[in-house]
């Protein structure tokens, strides 16, 4: 699967999200700091429950061991690693692979979790 150059690392906002367009799909990209290490996550920007492209504007954090983003519309939590909605486990959003290369953020064009219910 192909990789796409999305933006500079500096374009990310620490402990928050931005939105990128990847092959016509909206992708929410989050930068977190875990034990002092920057960690980047990418999931679909579309909130299938609220029906709007807003997840990049949600608050990131943790619920138990899970790293999540809370939808700004109705506050459901989506796992940033599996795409699954914690409150409605049958709802799954796409998860994308991310890599950091020479200060640039790259997204893999293919979804990592094929079972995503909303694309």
């Amino acid at each position, binding site marked *: 699967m192909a990789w796409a150059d*999305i*933006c500079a690392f500096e*374009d990310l*906002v*620490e*402990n*928050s999200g*931005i*939105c*990128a*367009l990847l092959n016509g799909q*909206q992708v929410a*990209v989050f930068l*977190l700091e*875990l034990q002092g290490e920057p960690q980047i996550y990418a999931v679909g920007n*579309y909130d*299938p429950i*609220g*029906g*709007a*492209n*807003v997840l990049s*504007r*949600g*608050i*990131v*954090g*943790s*619920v*138990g061991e899970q*790293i*999540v983003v*809370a939808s*700004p*519309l109705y*506050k459901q*939590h989506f796992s940033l690693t599996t795409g699954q909605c*914690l*409150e*409605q486990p*049958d*709802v799954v959003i796409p998860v994308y692979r991310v890599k950091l290369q020479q200060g640039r953020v790259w997204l893999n064009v293919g979804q990592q979790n094929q079972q995503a*219910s*909303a694309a």
Partner: protein
Amino acid sequence: MQQTKQILVIGNGMVGHHFVDQLRAKDPLAQITVLCGEAQLAYDRVHLSGYFSGTSAEQLALTTEEAYQAANIQYRLNCWVEQINREQQLVVTRQGGQFYYDELVLATGSYAFVPPIPGNDQPHCLVYRTLQDLDAIAQSAALSKVGVVIGGGLLGLEAANALKQLGLQTHVVEFAPQLMAVQLDQAGGQMLSQKITELGVQVHAGKATQAIVAGAECRYQLQFADGESLETDLVLFSAGIRPYDQLARSCGLAVGERGGIVVNDRCQTSDPHIYAIGECALWQQKIFGLVAPGYQMARVVVSQLTGGGLSFSGADMSTKLKLLGVEVGSIGDAHARTPGALSYVFTDPRAQVYKKMVVSKDGKRLLGAVLVGDTSNYDSLLQYALNDMLLPKQPEQLILPATTGVPLAALTLPDSATICSCHNVAKGDIVAAMDGGCCDLAGIKSCTKASTGCGGCTALLKSVVDDELKSRGVEVKNHLCEHFAYSRQELLHLVQVGGIKTFADLLSRHGQGLGCDICKPTVASILASSWNDYVLKKPHVGLQDTNDTFLANMQKDGSYSVVPRIAGGEITAEKLLVIGQVALDFNLYTKITGGQRIDLFGARLEQLPAIWQRLVDAGFETGHAYGKSLRTVKSCVGSTWCRYGVQDSVGQAIAIENRYKGLRAPHKIKMAVSGCTRECAEAQSKDIGIIATENGWNLYVCGNGGMRPRHADLFATDLDTETLIRYIDRILMLYIRTADRLQRTSVWMEKLDGGLEYLRKVIIDDELGIAAELENQMAALVHTYACEWKATLQDPQALKRFRQFVNSPDADENIVFVEERSQIRPATAEEKHQWLQQIPITQLSGAELPVNALAEEK
């Protein structure tokens, strides 16, 4: 990829809706079409009589058309199916519409049975079944004084309740010698009869109605077989239900002798591609006229269609309800028909309570029960019966009134015990939800759906949750969330005492994990209340709710609304023109708010800076409509213009609004100033209300409008302006320091130990000696105020956040507007679908328009 099947559902009652809901949850791709005979989608028939005591049709609704559209469920209302063509797998509607199916689900329900009594077809002879029926009953009742319900079963008594609520002199006529003959034994039925009679409903049992003829005193006269008669203006039939099975009959499906579409354990009819669920289905010669078994059938069919193996194995018909205010419960073998069954009976003739327990021959298992007048034992008895639990050595304890001394041992239910039968939630599911982090009732309800059907299990659910919490050694705490074991007040104290300036610092010193959408905004608000830093300063950015991050209010489609501050509701003509011109240029929807200002809707994220540049240039400031902070100070026109005004309320409102604008608090704060006691500004519904007097100002505190209205309390009278401001400073600061997250002032004061009196002592008498400190803190906040939009427009880093895509100038194509009443509104899901498919609709205004407007701006 499996090919998606076309699933057609006929009927959208409670069961039909439950099926659709469950199927969509299991299979997001299924093609679902619903043909609904009524004028609206599914509503709650169980609580139908509430319609006459103030529950609106909207409140009874189980879903909305918007929800169906959002879930991509096709539906037709007022759509009667005339014919099923099984060969072509096609149904034809009365209007001539044709719908093909791969799988057909009949959820046609039932209709009220009208006994073949001569004269039963007169205008004021009605049935009690649908919302339309209720409207007809209400109309008829308005022209009637006396009403009779024919049928003394469960539904009949519900109907009698409805007539009573409509103010009619109410009678119930029952053919059997007792009321509720299916569920209650004779003694129970008699007790019920007695209680209902005392409540003003006359019961006529053992009466066979032979004819309905013209009356002498009233509109009609019922003539009974024993020669007696009864005069009435209105007749309501509630003599049982009959399955709607005509469709099935006419297409050759197997039906029962006495009606009902025959189904097997998979709820399949004699045609394997046609299923029947709910009250139209006949399973092992039985029709199930309750909602829980219908839901169970719905889940069985969902399972069959999604590759699962669930099957229907009958259902428990136990019921607990309140009829005309009388508690009635019936469990299992209420009539003790099981061979060898033993009955324990307890009667309290004074309190009019009757309880019967039917146990097995060996006394070890509970088979059934009847409860009239007191159903407090119902939940535990039902659990014994359903789970086949071993009864205590002296089972009579279960129905005897609790005597002083030894209370019954806490009921320890097995994990398999069903708590909520509407949504099939077992105790194990609830425990699992609690393991998963849900630890309050609301969370467990939303996560397991328990107690969100008929609501009958609410008390049981609460006791299960409480017991479980207790067994885990959990005391009920006011900890903010899993990341901080402190209340909001304790956190504020930690922040202020420790001089903590960032969330990261607070988390590393006093918390754990990464934080979440509860603690982050709370801490952001605490930091703002304490230090008043620019909220979008780098370390604070990720803490804010989206509304605070983008300084605007997110709407349902992801677009934002913009509210400039119009202090006191006073605005110049020039500024009005600016707002109008901005709205025109950016194609925004405008609406006047309740707080005397103007809301501009439909702004895209990337348009916000350009919109605000225009507004700031014209002298506007942010209105903080997005923040947990002061919203508006509403005012009447006051003594300047008004013949009655005694003080300048507008001037005072503007001064106060400018003093407290931007103040971050645990929740939003609203204020108002009225220029005389006529109170045109409605100050007594505000957190802070000020009413002018001849001698100064009266201060009202802790009022609330909205969802939980509370009249404000008069706090102090005839204050001069300086004292007034000093008191408000102190009250607001105390509120900010001590309230819980999202606690409005009204609840805050009610929870203050000592309430209003205590508040007076702290604020007026300075009993705690903190008044000067509170004033100083407020002075610092007032002094450091800056308009957040002005600051944002000067910060290129912050402005970078206002773009839809980091790597593209495109706009979000999911934001689509259509025109309504000469303004834009968000397109519905269906309209968007058409837009994305590029099916031309003339009135659509898509992504281009606002983007162009933005480009011109640059």
